[in-house]
């Protein structure tokens, strides 16, 4: 990553020399200016204003009484995280648990479906791809209704059609804690559409000679998948991993289906920040929680990029 940044820096001419170059730079800047203005107004300034808020006791109902409280909010976060009845600790550990379960599940499902739907033997590929992508365009509220209904212990279908006839213990329904966690993972699996398409797109770029060579060398379908497909599409896997992990921590999803601030597809910790913000109106404390989450996410992303060199394959020896 560092080398690529350095290379980018050396490639980009920071000091235009001739009049022509200056003119080109000016016109280019003019074209990208909408994004620059938006970045400053909607991202950079708010991020630092949030940082400022996180050192105050900003309360939405009495904004006039706001005063500087130093690192009190951050001291409170530590208490909230590690004390016995701290809500933040509960929601953060839940979020991490959710990430550990849902992110690999999402990646493996997307990868498995992409492998199957890339098979040359498959008929009606386009229809199958559209059907797998379908849940990713359904609005979040509808997703919640469908799955809550389907999993409902009395009127739903999971117990009635599947678990009971198979003699399995009934599912307690999405309203219990364990049941809700399962619900979250299932709905996470219903948003793999973009990741699935990215992996499928990468698979179509695998040179067929490699498969032939592996075939000649006696590799079966599973070996070909593990030794040819997965290494070559590893950039797509890496990209999906980053996006899935970031979305667990409240960052962007590739195709946002609009989950509400109150529950739904967001992470428990994100939900907790929303509660502090909109139910108790403690904006100062909410800002410090958001900053803490931002830092956790940043650290996770940087750590992921640091591991990338060991397992992500770049054909021209480039790094992430």
């Amino acid at each position, binding site marked *: 990553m560092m080398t690529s940044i350095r290379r980018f820096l050396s490639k980009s001419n*920071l000091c235009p020399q001739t009049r022509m170059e200056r003119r080109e730079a000016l016109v*280019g800047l*003019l074209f990208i200016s909408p*994004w620059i203005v938006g970045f400053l107004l909607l991202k950079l300034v708010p991020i630092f*204003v949030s940082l400022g808020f996180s050192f105050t006791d900003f309360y939405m109902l009495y904004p006039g009484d706001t005063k500087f409280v130093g690192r009190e909010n951050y001291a409170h976060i530590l208490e909230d995280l590690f004390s016995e009845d701290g809500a933040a600790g509960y929601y953060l550990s839940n979020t991490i648990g959710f990430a550990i379960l849902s992110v690999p599940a999402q990646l493996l499902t997307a990868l498995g479906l992409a492998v199957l739907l890339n098979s040359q033997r498959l008929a009606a590929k*386009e229809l199958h*791809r559209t059907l797998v992508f379908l849940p990713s365009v359904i609005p979040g509220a509808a997703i919640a*209704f469908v799955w809550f209904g389907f999993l409902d212990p009395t009127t739903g279908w999971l117990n009635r059609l599947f678990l009971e006839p198979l003699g399995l213990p009934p599912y307690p329904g999405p309203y219990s804690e364990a049941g809700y966690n399962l619900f979250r993972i299932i709905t996470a699996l219903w948003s793999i559409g973009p990741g699935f398409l990215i992996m499928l797109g990468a698979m179509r770029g695998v040179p067929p000679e490699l498969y032939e060579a592996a075939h000649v060398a006696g590799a079966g379908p599973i070996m070909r998948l593990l030794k040819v497909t997965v290494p070559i599409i590893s950039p797509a896997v890496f990209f999906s991993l980053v996006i899935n992990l970031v979305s667990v921590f409240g960052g962007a999803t590739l195709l946002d289906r609009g989950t*509400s601030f109150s529950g739904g597809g967001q992470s428990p910790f994100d939900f907790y920040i929303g509660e502090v913000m909109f139910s108790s109106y403690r904006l100062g404390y*909410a800002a410090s929680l958001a900053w803490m989450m931002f830092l956790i996410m940043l650290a996770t992303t940087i750590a992921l990029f640091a591991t990338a060199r060991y397992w992500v394959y770049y054909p021209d020896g480039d790094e992430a």
Partner: protein
Amino acid sequence: MADSPQHHRAHKKARLGLQLWDGLGTALVNLLVVFLVIVYLFPISYMVFTAFKMDSQFSDIKAPIWPARIVTYTYTGEDYPLYEVPTAGSIKKWALVERHRTESTFVNPANPETGPITWEGSWRTLDPVYEFYPAFENFAYLWATINYPRLVWNTVKVTMLSGIGVMISSILVAYGFSRFRIPGGNLLFILLIATVLIPEKITLIPTYYMFTRILNWNGTYYPLIVPHLFGNAILIFLLRQNFKSIPREMEEAAMIDGAGPLRILTSVILPQSGPVITTAALLHFFYAWNELRQASLYLGISPDLYTLAFRVQQYQSYFAPPNMLQVSALFAMAIPVLVLFLTQREFMHEVLITGLEK
């Protein structure tokens, strides 16, 4: 030549075996995929079945899993439900006229002239006779209560206005990034991609404060539209990758003819970028149509402006019966799903080719 008749036969046999094996593999792959897709989308069948059920079916534990109602028989001007009554010899479908604990009175619809028949036993142990009945009235009812056309129109307005804004600015920015040597341009582009990673919550408080207290945009569509006028990082990325792949010869020819940068964009670049522009617009459409967070933040105080996704989400808190919840879910997803199927060829293909990869 080793092409002796025996050898030839053995070879043919082996090839036949291979073909069989191959056909079996193909059949297995297809079966597996069809099975997995059915499992993956199975809850949608629950949604459709439930949406067509009548309210009464949810309190009836004997009711079948498909939308159904109890068959009734009109006898002396009144409707009576049909039950499967075991009698000596066979099970008869009789209408229950009078209910008692140990014996009940039935009428045989096939032969009503014989009059009431008394049957010994508890009628509660009997199974009703069901017939398939899709309750279209659920849809009519919800259509009328939530004012569906108006919600759709509101959503179309927001989606169109923000869509036009985001497309124009994203195209301009992507063009700027793909064709001009800007000092630090590559660094800016890395920054642009990195903005995707910024969590929404961290910018939320200041922007919320700015929109509601300073600009007084609470209860208007501005917060749902204005931020899109500055472009969208993912769409810019997608468009820029595509613009970069367009050969420059035509632009150079146009430049010699005296065309300016804007003219080159509209007459050279855009005509060659139809598919990627469609895809970017579709990505924005799917996002904006389902958008819920901004809508719930800023539209709450003005019910006239509710978007479809926001209105349907509110249904959750009304303790609506399961069938109405599923009807509302169907209403909410109908249009995006329709658009996906209508555009699947272009959309899926383009996302696959361009790849959203970094």
